[in-house]
């Protein structure tokens, strides 16, 4: 009887500790390290997620730079670099979505689920790893952009804020993508469709071509789609210009991504880990 009681309290203790903030933080840190190691060891994926945006950046500048520059009177790099940073940060989340689906089918999620680990830690670790990858791709693209003439004229504070934009925005987007990945059956092409949608977004924003060059009926959509405020905000942070409105729009989009993603992600995660 006493043994039983001791065991029950111990179990209750473990359960309480499992839910505590400290456990969540410690578990997330370990799992984030794991995610990053898994990502880095897959060399072709690393190259693809870092080199393709860099090559696209150079190509868009070389092919369309003069034309768009003439039309706007500003070096087109100030649109293209932010555009490719956002594309790079959003596009890479497909990789982590596919990895999540694979780790579910290999049973890793179920194995983590039966251990005394905080329920949200796996999810946060995936988002945190995404944030690290986004930071890396942002710095690489900024370096490539700098080599072609992209400059910060607004000081160090603005430069740091510029880097923070894709990290926050991309992480919020990653929550949504992970939620979709974990709630869709493995092998479903949902993530690919999301990739196609992102490719469309890549052409219809203020970084690819000036907004007033789009047909009239398309302009409101182009101006308010998720990427355009981010691009304009980053452009302002690099060269100066209005910030508040775009900052609010970016925050709203990020909040929508997270708000739409968190609950389905947690529920889907439990289902994915326990379903047989």
């Amino acid at each position: 009887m006493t043994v039983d009681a001791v065991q029950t309290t111990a179990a209750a203790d473990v359960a309480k500790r499992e839910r505590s903030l400290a456990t969540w933080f410690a578990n997330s840190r370990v799992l984030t390290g794991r995610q990053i190691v898994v990502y880095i060891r897959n060399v072709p994926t690393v190259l693809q997620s870092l080199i393709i945006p860099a090559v696209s950046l150079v190509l868009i500048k070389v092919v369309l730079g003069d034309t768009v520059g003439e039309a706007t009177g500003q070096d087109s790099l100030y649109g293209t670099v932010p555009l490719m940073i956002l594309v790079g940060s959003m596009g890479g989340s497909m990789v982590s979505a596919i990895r999540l689906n694979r780790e579910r089918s290999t049973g890793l999620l179920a194995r983590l689920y039966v251990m005394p680990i905080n329920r949200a830690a796996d999810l946060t670790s995936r988002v945190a790893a995404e944030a690290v990858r986004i930071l890396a791709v942002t710095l690489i693209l900024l370096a490539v952009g700098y080599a072609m003439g992209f400059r910060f004229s607004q000081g160090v504070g603005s430069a740091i804020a510029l880097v923070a934009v894709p990290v926050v925005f991309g992480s919020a987007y990653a929550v949504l993508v992970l939620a979709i990945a974990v709630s869709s059956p493995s092998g479903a092409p949902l993530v690919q469709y999301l990739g196609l949608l992102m490719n469309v977004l890549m052409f219809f924003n203020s970084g690819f071509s000036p907004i007033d060059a789009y047909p009239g009926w398309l302009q409101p959509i182009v101006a308010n789609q998720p990427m355009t405020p981010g691009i304009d905000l980053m452009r302002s942070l690099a060269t100066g210009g209005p910030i508040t409105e775009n900052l609010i729009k970016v925050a709203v989009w990020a909040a929508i991504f997270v708000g739409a993603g968190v609950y389905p992600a947690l529920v889907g995660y439990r289902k994915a880990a326990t379903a047989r």
Partner: protein
Amino acid sequence: MTTHTDTPGAPQAISVPSGVRTLRQWQTLTSRGLLKVLRNGEFMFAFIAPAFLALCFYLPLRKVMDSAPGMDYGQFLMPIILLQAVSFAGTSAAMRSSFDVSRGINTRFRVLPMAGWVPLTARLATNVVLLCVSMLCGVVACLIIGWRPGGGIAGTIGLFAITLGIGVLLALVADGLGLVAGTPEATSQFLGLPTMVLGMVSTGFVPEERFPEWIRGFARNQPISQFVDVMRVADSSEPMTWSVAAPTVCWCAGLAALAGYLVVAGTRKARR
């Protein structure tokens, strides 16, 4: 008196003339390829790929481009959209042949009483059908963004004939590449970056004088730009001259040689 009747099974195979048998094998394999294309939804993608390209460049850039005198961007984009349609058919050809290698179908074909060139020509026939469908889809996409044939009947027929010829050569190269690369992943990596670079840095999207000085030579002389030039001439009232067509003829000869080399290398690899 024949002794063949003594062994069961053999007479049936021998009673059919070998030409007819080969034709049936070819027919079977071709319909296998076409069914696969149908089930993969590639016929649908044959429309999505060029339409996507057409809209994603035409809508954002038309106003910026048309500000240059004498420019009609819908008309200007037409060749590169057709080439994109054709290269989509090529990519899917490469994927199919590499799946045939990686899943061991080619090895199984080799132990069957079937001439070695039957699978090859069957794949070619499948590719040509998909090629025609994607070309048709590409033409529809071009018509939507405002392209109108400008070369008369002869010019338009010439335009499509040139595109089809380039497409068949590309499909052959892609088929051989799939055989040599062996896995679908490696194949898509072989194809991905080069097609992207060649396609973007061509005179298909932007006229040559809008490129930065240092890259104009490359942009002008690389194969895609030369194909685009020939197609534009065929689509206009200008007469086709040898000086316009020569680089394309040379590039096509080069593609044919490459295709021959890859197919031979791929077939030899399968035999090992």
